[in-house]
Structure formats: C-alpha cells, structure tokens
C-alpha cells in the first residue's frame, strides 16, 4: 500500500522550511529514526533550495511528490526552471571549498538512491529514496 502526498510550492525561500517540517512529519510517521529524519530534511531542503534558486517563471512554482510505503519514502522535487546540462555539472572540490555547489553532493551523500532527470528548456526532477529498513 502506497500513499501519495503532493505539495505545490511557490518558489520563495520562506516556504522551504514549511516543506522541511511537512516531510519531517511524514518521515516520522513511517518510523524513521532521528538521524534518518535529519538526513531526509537536509536532502529535501537542498532540492527545494535548488528549485528556488533556479526558478525562471514569474512565481517559480515547483512541486514536491512524496510516496510513502512501509519499505521506503520517495521524495521528488520537480521544477520548471529550464533544466541544466548535466555534462557541465562537476562535483564540488572538497579541497578548495567555495560558496554554492554543495547541494547535489549533500543529497547524494544523505539518501539511499538519488536520480536527477533534467531537460534543457524544461526543468529538473530530483528523486530521492530513503529505505526504512
């Protein structure tokens, strides 16, 4: 049995915290431990931050889809901000830290599975999975 919860979010910084609290509550209801809930909160916030920073439409609205089952939580953050060319993305250099560019790296480190679908001219979907184990 899988439940779907969807949010449609204005692309404004102040709503990232709202989504973080909502996802935290959903993760808690699935029985994740405190550390896993913190991982999910950070990963989802990073994905939402990307959507807000890259917004191209007037209100930059993006969507957050949550798929809840006994085994796992799948969260997808989908924007219509025009996408990016993944060939030009490079992993941040951890020896020479700079502002920005850490978000995707952090998401990959904290979640069990991460898939990024992006299409230039359309948008980006970051799909993240955490297993309840």
């Amino acid at each position, binding site marked *: 049995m899988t439940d779907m919860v969807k949010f449609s979010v204005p692309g404004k*910084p*102040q709503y*990232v*915290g709202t989504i*973080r609290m909502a996802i935290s509550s959903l993760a808690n209801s699935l029985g994740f431990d405190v*550390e896993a809930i*913190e*991982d999910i*909160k*950070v990963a989802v*916030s*990073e994905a*939402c*931050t990307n959507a*807000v*920073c890259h917004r191209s439409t007037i209100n930059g609205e993006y969507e957050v889809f949550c798929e809840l089952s006994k085994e796992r939580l799948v969260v997808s953050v989908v924007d219509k901000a025009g996408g990016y060319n993944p060939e030009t993305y490079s992993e941040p250099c*951890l*020896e020479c*830290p*700079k*502002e*920005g560019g*850490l*978000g995707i*790296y*952090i998401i990959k*480190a*904290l979640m069990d599975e991460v898939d990024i679908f992006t299409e230039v001219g359309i948008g980006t979907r970051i799909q993240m999975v955490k297993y309840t184990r």
Partner: protein
Amino acid sequence: MTLQIQRSFDQEKGRWNITPKGDVDISTAPVLRTALDEAYREAKANVVLHFDQLNYMDSTGLGVIIGAYGRMKESGNDIILENPRDNIKKLLRITNLDRLLCPELCE
C-alpha cells in the same frame, strides 16, 4: 523558520563570539551572512561560532561560513565552530569542512 543571532566581542581573548539560535536555510542564511559581515567590519578578529542552539543548517549556511572563512583568511583570521549538534556534525563531515572549521571533531 526563525534565526536569532547574538554577537559580542570578547576583549580579553580578542575574538568575536557569535551564537545563532534556530535554523539556517535559504530564507535565514542572509541573516547569518549579515551578522558575520557586520562583526568583521567592526573589528577584524577571529570568530567563534557557538552552535549549541542551532537546530538545523544546510548548504546555504555552509556557503555563508565558507565565504566568511575565505574573506577572513585573507587578513589572517580564523573562524571556528563550537559544539555543533550531531546533524550538523554529519554535514560538516561529509563535506570535509570539519577539518577546516572544527578540527577537534576530526580527532
């Protein structure tokens, strides 16, 4: 989400004590940036960030701290994080920033 920041200059040790309380994310990171910039403009000195009461931080906060770290290094000052909670420690560890910002956690 809220973020409150207290800052004071320790004359004896010649350093800033800055204590953020709450959450640092995309909406509150500018508050942290302003606090660090203002302090450093007032007096160029080392900065100790007391993280005891910081519940949450993500890459937006790390970005602000890295930016401040870079500017401060140019004039020979340091920025040190003290008592980050486990969730923030983990973030520092996976980004390797613990070695720069709180070396005692690496031991």
